[in-house]
């Protein structure tokens, strides 16, 4: 009996050398399990197993009112909490056909980009740590702390903000927000080149990442790989450009697209995105218009009967919020198209034929956040 169970858990042929990476493994960044079939050190097959942190957020949302949903979306992709919140808010606002004040749009966009930088910083440290350069972890977190301090001052929380609410923001930004943000940009413009010197330029790092895990454009579209991972393959999938929301139509920025599609360019795309995000913030930070921080919404928000879809660009790719409303105060069905879910399953294709160390590099470059996969 026990043997049968073991057999069911471990797939793969009997003569394969199968190792389990995860759910408790330093480089799976959470409770994800890779079942890796090896030949020597070369990977023959990777089967990802997820569900270790499945919480049924979609089911929970069906019993929650729209403002209550917001705090659950924080907990999907906790590194782009603000963007997740915003996507739901935008969806509700579009459904109600209300237009939030310009001030809200500007602040949301700035926060989105700050959140993106913070997320990429954490990704950068984790990526470095996956590759064995442990010092990167502390440099990344050191700089991320500055953003979290800004967040804490305005929202009261550092990671899971729940700062957006349908119709605007929970409260106005802190008076010091602009000053602190500008200080941060100034600081980070100095620190970001250090990232390049420490890791991107490093000959060992380049040898570890260049031409490893090459993702072609066709595969990127076929598998729905979005975000910087997809853009590194030439898939121009930036929702901020395709369907601009909030204040994105008002800013000019470059969509980072590379065509190589290997691990190094997935890395490079994110590093470059941090520069672009800083550009966006700099364009907006001095021009935040005066006004209310939120619209006056009804006490109970009921969406008209219908289906609403909102796309937003999180730090990891395209987030889709699909709300089906039957006119009640709770959604009839809500679906989150999470970027990591699609991004995860390419791993078998990318890692096959490479070494174990490359699997770690590839999964690091895909920047997976496991709660977002399982939801």
């Amino acid at each position: 009996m026990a043997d049968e169970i073991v057999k069911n858990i471990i797939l793969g042929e009997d003569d394969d050398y199968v190792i389990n990476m995860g759910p408790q493994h330093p480089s799976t960044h959470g409770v994800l399990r890779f079942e890796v079939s090896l030949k020597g050190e070369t990977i023959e097959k990777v089967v990802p197993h997820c569900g270790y942190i499945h919480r049924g957020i979609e089911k929970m949302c069906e019993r929650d009112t729209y403002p209550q949903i917001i705090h659950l979306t924080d907990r999907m992709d906790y590194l782009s909490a603000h963007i997740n919140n915003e996507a739901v808010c935008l969806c509700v606002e579009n459904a109600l056909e209300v237009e939030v004040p310009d001030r809200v749009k500007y602040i949301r966009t700035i926060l989105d980009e700050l959140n993106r930088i913070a997320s990429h910083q954490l990704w950068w440290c984790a990526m470095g740590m996956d590759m064995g350069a442990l010092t990167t972890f502390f440099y990344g977190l050191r700089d991320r702390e500055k953003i979290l301090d800004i967040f804490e001052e305005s929202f009261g929380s550092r990671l899971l903000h729940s700062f957006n609410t349908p119709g605007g923001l929970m409260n106005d930004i802190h008076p010091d927000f602009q000053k602190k943000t500008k200080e941060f940009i100034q600081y980070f413009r100095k620190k970001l080149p250090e990232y390049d010197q420490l890791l991107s330029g490093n000959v060992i790092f380049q040898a570890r990442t260049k031409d490893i895990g090459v993702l072609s454009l066709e595969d990127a579209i076929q598998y729905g790989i979005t975000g910087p991972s997809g853009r590194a393959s030439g898939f121009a999938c930036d929702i901020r450009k395709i369907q601009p929301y909030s204040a994105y139509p008002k800013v000019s920025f470059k969509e980072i697209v590379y065509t190589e599609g290997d691990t190094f360019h997935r890395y490079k795309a994110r590093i470059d995105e941090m520069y672009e995000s800083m550009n966006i913030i700099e364009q907006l930070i001095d021009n935040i218009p005066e006004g209310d921080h939120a619209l006056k919404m009804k006490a109970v928000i009921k969406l008209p009967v219908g289906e609403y879809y909102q796309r937003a660009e999180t730090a990891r790719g395209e987030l889709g919020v699909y709300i089906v409303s039957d006119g009640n105060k709770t959604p009839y069905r809500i679906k989150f198209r999470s970027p990591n879910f699609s991004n995860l399953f390419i791993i078998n294709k990318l890692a096959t034929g490479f070494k174990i160390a490359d699997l770690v590099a590839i999964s690091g470059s895909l920047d997976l956040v496991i709660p977002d996969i399982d939801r």
Partner: protein
Amino acid sequence: MKEVLNYFEDIFFGIRSLWAGMRITGKYFVSPRQIVTQKYPENRKELKMTERFKGEVIMPHDENNHHRCTGCGICQINCPNGSIEIITKKELNAEGKEVRAIDKHIYHLSMCTFCGLCVKTCPSDALAFGREFEHAVFDKSKLTKILNQPGSSLLKDVK
């Protein structure tokens, strides 16, 4: 000949890139003023959380042990996780009419996600966020708190 040149070029650029990284770590090694970590329990006194820090939900009481909670239950309805339970009682007011008043405002810190909906939606501003952040206890039941202090009563002018 070209291969040989490439070979040495590889070595040269490799060493240069390695040195670039070593310069950074070396620079931080000799500049202890850039250390960012703090000695946490020792710095408790100067450790200030920001004004808006969401540590826990509290019910502010004034010096006469008055709070502003009418026991309307809006926070309970708005809480996504059921971390607030409100037990009301009937009380005679100054005019001798029987009105609803708060008996116990039970707050389960263990279930709270600090989304802020209760504080935001409270019509009489009875709730606020406390800045306490050291919540570790040895017994889970200690995380269930009664927010209104014993013997407290409603402030006069709160509707």
